[in-house]
């Protein structure tokens, strides 16, 4: 095993081993070692993982070039094979550094934060598992292995959102996050299926090598499906609503997963798939549009939130939207740069959020008292004008004609214009948050108490200082936009993330436009924040313009997306499930009355298996009596459209009586159906019954009158009668006696056998066989059985006539 392989395996393996060891400890009831050791193991492994990643990064800088590490053959089936392997290129190394670095800090931070929390071990186990899964995600060298990590982080996210299990809200939030992610995963899976079909493999190298030769439609479809997966994981619209509720988890885990690392997996996916998107320009535009709309949405929502985590979550959504926007423009390096910077400052914000709350305010609601508002309308309007002005550029461009240097498609300008507005909103929201959080709220509740100061030990502050330093570093290097063409970051990423579509390198006009826009926005954001305060919903009605107030309300409720999904998707799906349940029990099977459980009170009260068993056993007799009376059951025998509808095709066999029965049943069933509300099913049943009745009248009654059927039926009836008479008359007393003796012997034998130990075996076997026969007979009248028999019969006819 070479050095690289060892290092790659260690980076992944260390967090995994921590998770395993801590799980074992948890399973033994934490008897092996205590909580201090649990935390220490988690922190040490993560830090070690980070250090090794640093080593790999250093090796990467010294000797550039991607390294592929194959661990073993994962799937090998015919032509299709996938290796479990890692791809270490600049992109994955940057991601590894982000993941392990932020994780190390957050895990260390958590030691203090989670102190004395119930579920301490569970928390650290899941965190270690998360680090492992996230590393698999970013290090994988194929879509399949990436998907393993993808789902792994999903599960960890589920576990951490639902960490506070005493709260129903967190369970619901966890489920919501998981299910919405699964919707996205379906897209990812489909993309993989398509890739398997068209390229025969899932290895990045294989897929990307063939991406240029694939049909355009396929590449576009793959791109869109990958985007669907990314929107789920990265909380983009339309799948983004889970992120706001994901804040139910412990704050450090939110910092790590729902701000810094996990949610950026979608961005990573898009950047990683750049060679595919290069050949799918339409899909790329959709990426940009999704990102822009989400950014706008996130900022608007973030502006109105009243709890600090809600603000941060909305801001995360918006920032991720901006990353998607960059991807959509083909500026993959900018997106990754933004990803790294965002990881630093957002995790910093999350980790300080509890400090701020703890230190300055008593609750999680930093709503300030309203302050005097400056009129800043002109500036806000100016920013909006810049945005709309950009919207007009393509029109202008079309009028002026193609200018030298502009290779952008027209759609890009739409995206760009929306982006400017989104950035404006971002500044706005940040300003407000800062202003509100640090404002003097009066009433003296902002004065830090000595107690609060004491609890803010060095442990809490140290990682914050480190993070602050990193933020400063990020800012320092980011003053020159690090991701733009020609910058050091671009060079570091090398070819793996260099897009070929989008802004031409060094387009001075564009850079200038961006700069002007940003400057304007910075200026106007501050005033805008104050201006928009007028519409806050908390103010009395009529205090501000109605349209803005409505917008404010909508944003406060996160655009009513949750409500929309509940009503438009969840409720109909559940209704469909219930409807199918009724369909299942009423049409395919018997009416619900019989399948409804009627457990006795005694059985329900009995706590244990044995007690229940005994209780039920004692009712056997009663149950048997109840089962023996069939009248109620007779009327559902074979009742359904399924049983009746094939009948018309059957009349060639002259099966008159059966048709009659079917008709009666069908009408009985239709009565039942119309009693129960009818609807379409009832109507169909009525129609079927009418048809069957008509058939009965036409064929059966005529047959009864003068047809062959009538005479045949009469003849057979007479024959049966005679046979029966003869048979009974010939039974003389001796036969009867013999029967009695045989019966007696059987009885005795049965009793002996029974006593000797079969207990009730033979008896119940006999009864069982009897009931089985009864059951079979009953079943023969069953719609599904009849249906299958008829189907077979028909088939036989078809085959025979062929």
């Amino acid at each position, binding site marked *: 095993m070479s050095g690289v392989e060892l290092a790659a395996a260690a980076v992944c393996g260390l967090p995994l081993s921590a998770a395993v060891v801590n799980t074992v400890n948890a399973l033994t009831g934490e008897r092996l070692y205590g909580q201090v050791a649990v935390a220490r193991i988690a922190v040490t492994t993560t830090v070690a993982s980070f250090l090794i990643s640093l080593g790999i990064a250093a090796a990467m800088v010294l000797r550039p070039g991607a390294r592929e590490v194959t661990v073993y053959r994962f799937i090998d089936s015919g032509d299709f094979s996938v290796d479990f392997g890692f791809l270490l290129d600049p992109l994955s190394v940057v991601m590894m550094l982000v993941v392990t670095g932020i994780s190390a800090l957050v895990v260390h931070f958590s030691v203090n934060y989670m102190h004395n929390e119930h579920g301490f071990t569970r928390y650290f186990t899941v965190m270690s598992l998360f680090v492992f899964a996230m590393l698999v995600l970013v290090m994988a060298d194929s879509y399949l292995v990436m998907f393993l990590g993808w789902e792994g982080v999903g599960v960890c996210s589920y576990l951490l959102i639902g960490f506070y299990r005493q709260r129903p809200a967190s369970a619901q939030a966890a489920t919501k996050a998981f299910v919405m992610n699964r919707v996205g995963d379906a897209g990812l*899976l489909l993309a993989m299926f398509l890739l398997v079909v068209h390229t025969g493999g899932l290895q990045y190298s294989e897929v990307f090598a063939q991406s240029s030769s694939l049909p355009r439609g396929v590449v576009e479809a793959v791109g869109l499906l990958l985007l669907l997966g990314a929107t789920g994981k990265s909380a983009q619209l339309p799948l983004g609503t889970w992120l706001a509720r994901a804040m139910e988890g412990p704050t450090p885990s939110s910092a790590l997963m729902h701000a810094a690392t996990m949610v950026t997996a979608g961005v990573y996916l898009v950047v990683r798939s750049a060679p595919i998107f290069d050949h799918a320009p339409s899909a790329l535009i959709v990426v940009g549009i999704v990102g822009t709309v989400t950014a706008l949405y996130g900022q608007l929502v973030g502006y109105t939130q009243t709890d600090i985590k809600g603000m941060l979550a909305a801001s995360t959504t918006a920032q991720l939207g901006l990353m998607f926007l960059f991807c959509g423009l083909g500026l993959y390096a900018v997106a990754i740069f933004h990803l790294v910077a965002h990881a630093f400052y957002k995790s910093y914000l999350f980790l300080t959020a509890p400090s701020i709350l703890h230190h300055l305010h008593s609750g999680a609601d930093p709503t300030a008292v309203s302050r005097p508002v400056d009129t800043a309308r002109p500036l806000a309007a100016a920013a909006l004008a810049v945005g709309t002005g950009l919207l007009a550029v393509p029109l202008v461009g079309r009028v002026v004609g193609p200018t030298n240097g502009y290779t952008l498609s027209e759609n890009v300008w739409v995206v760009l214009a929306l982006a400017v507005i989104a950035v404006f909103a971002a500044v706005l929201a940040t300003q407000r948050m800062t202003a509100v959080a640090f404002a003097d709220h009066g009433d003296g509740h902002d004065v830090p108490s000595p107690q609060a100061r004491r609890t803010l030990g060095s442990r809490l502050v140290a990682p914050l200082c480190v993070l602050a330093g990193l933020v400063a570093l990020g800012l320092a290097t980011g003053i020159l936009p690090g991701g733009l063409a020609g910058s050091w970051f671009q060079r570091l990423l090398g070819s793996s993330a260099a897009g070929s579509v989008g802004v031409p390198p060094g387009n001075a006009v564009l850079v200038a436009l961006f700069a002007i826009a940003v400057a304007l926005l910075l200026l106007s954001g501050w005033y805008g924040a104050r201006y928009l305060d007028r519409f806050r919903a908390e103010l009395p009605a009529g205090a501000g313009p109605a349209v803005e107030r409505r917008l404010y309300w909508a944003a406060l409720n996160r655009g009513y997306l949750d409500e929309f999904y509940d009503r438009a998707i969840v409720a109909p799906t559940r209704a469909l499930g219930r409807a199918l349940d009724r369909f299942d029990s009423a049409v395919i099977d018997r009416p619900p009355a019989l399948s409804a459980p009627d457990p006795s009170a005694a059985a329900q009260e009995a706590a244990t298996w044995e007690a229940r068993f005994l209780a039920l056993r004692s009712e056997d007799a009663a149950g048997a009596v109840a089962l023996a009376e069939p009248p109620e059951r007779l009327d559902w025998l074979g009742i359904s459209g399924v049983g009746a509808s094939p009948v018309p095709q059957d009349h060639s066999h002259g099966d008159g009586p059966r048709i009659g029965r079917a008709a009666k049943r069908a009408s009985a069933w239709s009565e039942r159906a119309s009693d129960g509300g009818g609807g379409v099913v009832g109507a169909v049943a009525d129609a079927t019954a009418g048809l069957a009745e008509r058939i009965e009248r036409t064929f059966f009654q005529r047959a009864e009158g003068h047809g062959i059927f009538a005479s045949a039926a009469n003849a057979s009836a007479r024959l049966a009668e005679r046979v029966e008479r003869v048979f009974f008359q010939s039974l003389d007393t001796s036969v009867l006696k013999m029967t009695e003796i045989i019966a007696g012997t059987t009885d005795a034998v049965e009793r002996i056998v029974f006593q000797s130990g079969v207990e009730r075996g033979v008896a*119940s076997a006999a009864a069982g066989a009897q009931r089985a026969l009864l059951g079979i007979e009953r079943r023969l009248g069953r719609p599904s059985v009849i249906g299958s028999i008829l189907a077979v019969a028909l088939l036989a006819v078809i085959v025979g006539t062929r």
Partner: protein
Amino acid sequence: MNLDEVMAAEQVGFPILSMLIALPLIFCGLLQVVRSDRVAKVLGIGGAGIEAGLTVLVALRFDVGTADIQFVERSGGILGISWHLGVDGVNLLFIPLTALLTLLVIIYAERATASTHTGSARHYAMATLALEAAMIGAFVSLDLIVFWFFFVIELVPSWFLITRWGTGAARRRAAGEYVGFMGVGAALMLAGILLLGRSHAESTGDGYSFDLLALLAAGIPAEAQTLIFFLLFFGFAVKAPIFPFHTWMPKVLEHGPIVGMSVFLVGVKLATYGLLRFVIPLLPDAASEWFWLMAVLGVTGTVYGALLALGQSNLRRLLAYASLSHMGVVMLGLFSLNLDGFEGGLLQMINLGIVGAGLFFVAGFLSSRVGPPEVGELGGLIHHAPFLTGSFLIIALPASDCPARMGSTASTWSCSVPTSSTGRWRSPPVSASSSPPPTPCRTSCAGSWAPPVPPW
């Protein structure tokens, strides 16, 4: 298709497969004779243990390097019926799986009834062992009539298990329904098998034969295939179950015994095994003619089962529908009619066997402690039974197709392969892979992590 055989005598020196069938029956008899409950307990667990050990021996001695049928026993030959047993890659894994599940079920029953002296644990073990013998017999037999015999005889212990140890009030009805459905299915299947024998007699002139290898060698005339295909298919479809023949299953699983039958019903995929073993190889023309119908049924079942499962409140019923949903995926894999699809489907069968059995064990534990396991009322379970809940979560993940667990590889496989190789269907796998997940997820969420909540 020409398959060579390796006789059991060459590999282990004794007829090990016959022994696998006979051993549970012998212990069944011993259990009947023995007086002491304690000895009976040891015998029950011991018998199942020895059986499991033997199956492991089969798996270990199995030579993976060859496609031959191994451990073959062949004797008799009355009316074309012969005692012909053998193991190859298709049925190898089912045998240890069956034995393992039997062992677990018996251990569970012994422990659950240890404190009472009803004697029921003994008979429970007997019925379970008999069931095991029938299952293993069906899995290893290469003669269709023998297979059919085991397929039918399995109903007897099942009947007792459901009626005597069922926990729901409607258990008799459920048992009746089970036997009735299976009876009709078996009758159709018998007709199909007899037709197979007849076609052998017609094409070779050697008289009737029901031996799989002989039938394969002789081939079935294409015009006879469709009828036989559907006769056999109906038999297996009822057993599997495949939509729309599934209605017996939720009832049996809800009202049946807590662990025993349920584990086997969900865990041991006898019917889909039959499809893969007999129907597809023997009737390739019909299979390729009707593959689309099978795929439609599979996909319908997948979506239908998942939707129904979403609406269930009883955990056992819920799992029953989830199981129906999974069968659809297996069907899709099998009827892609290529090697990858078979492999994926087979893997999926085994995996879901383990997963489904695991889920039903947990459901059984819950059922025995709290009565009917209503999902909405199980909130906060993790406080009282952390390990149980954790296990449920871990087992539920493959059931919801999460990767890195065994289920996903298989289902990805059986879903992606049909798309790739036949190129005939594109959209069905979507629904297949996306619809089952919410189910177990919802269960474990609503059921374990929180105090009682109304299902979302």
